[in-house]
């Protein structure tokens, strides 16, 4: 179908009306259908911004050894195993394994003290406190991208943050 240029120009100069609104609605459906925004993207960005807001005070932990757990967020498999992070002030080792429909995270932080440990998952936050040997666990974590934020009583102004890991 083709229309002549005069007709097209006239149509182009017309004000947007109800039919155009219907077309836009169809277009919006089409865009969302062909190329949906990935599940969890908004939550991951929210989490990144939350961490960023802490940034001035944060010591980011570096991954040590094989990044078996630090897979990209679009991977859905659980990589059971052990992973170690380190920074000048703290070393954290965690092991992750599936349990029921959930994920169990056991961790150990050194130097040992009673550290407050936050598990950030999307918009959710779970908090626990390690024992005096620095051991902590989260028994019912959900699958998906996560970060730990650790606050030490010996230096409460500098929280320590892990990179994002996939549980």
């Amino acid at each position: 179908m083709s229309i002549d240029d005069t007709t097209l120009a006239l149509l182009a100069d017309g004000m947007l009306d109800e039919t155009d609104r219907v077309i836009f609605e169809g277009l919006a459906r089409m865009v969302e259908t062909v190329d949906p925004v990935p599940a969890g993207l908004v939550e991951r960005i929210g989490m990144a911004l939350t961490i960023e807001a802490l940034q001035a005070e944060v010591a980011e932990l570096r991954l040590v050894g094989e990044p078996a757990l630090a897979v990209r967020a679009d991977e859905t498999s659980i990589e059971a195993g052990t992973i170690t992070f380190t920074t000048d002030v703290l070393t954290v080792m965690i092991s992750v394994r599936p349990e029921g429909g959930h994920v169990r995270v056991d961790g150990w932080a050194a130097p040992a003290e009673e550290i407050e440990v936050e598990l950030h998952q999307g918009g959710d936050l779970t908090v626990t406190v390690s024992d005096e040997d620095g051991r902590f666990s989260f028994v019912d974590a959900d699958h998906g991208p996560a970060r730990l934020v650790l606050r030490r009583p010996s230096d409460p102004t500098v929280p320590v943050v892990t990179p994002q890991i996939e549980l």
Partner: protein
Amino acid sequence: MMSDDLVEPVDTALRDQGEGLADQAARAVLAYREGEREPLAALVHVMTPLLWHTVRAQGADPEQAEDIVQNVWLTLVRDIDQIRDPRATLQWMLVTAKRAAWRTVRRSRDEQVRQSNDEHATDWLTTPVEDLPDSVAVRSERDEALWQHVRALPDRCRKLLGLVAMVERPDYAVVSQALGMPVGSIGPTRGRCLAKLRAALTADPTWSPS
């Protein structure tokens, strides 16, 4: 208080018409600077889809697009005190996203240049219905005519209309300018891209606006 009765309806009407993403972004930036983070978190929810589609329309693959969109947000927060005109935040984010996508796409094409020629120039929204997963294809049956005519549009029109469809009227101009389209390419009049699509649709007996 009589005067309030007279003034308020006008006020409300203006607010309903004027509030778009650009306004919401401006308010979120100002609030964030005051230490209030909630409005920005809300903005992430409503604006991330637009950024996503903007980046995808430039040809970035899904993995690249996720990184780019997240980085645009992080850059905004890191530079938030430097923004001189908060009202330009939406425009700035769209342009930043688009340019980052260009750079990424160019780089990956340079890397692949030996394997394949540049046949995957932007193919955003051109997937034929029959290539979609069945569940999607069934859902989209009622839009089939629309899909066919959209695929027939020039690349720049397809991008313009697809992205403008993501926002409300007050933001049409910002979105089209960020794409490098001339002022007035859409809204308050239709502009040529939408006129073309509308002419094709209204001439197609299988399409009905309901």
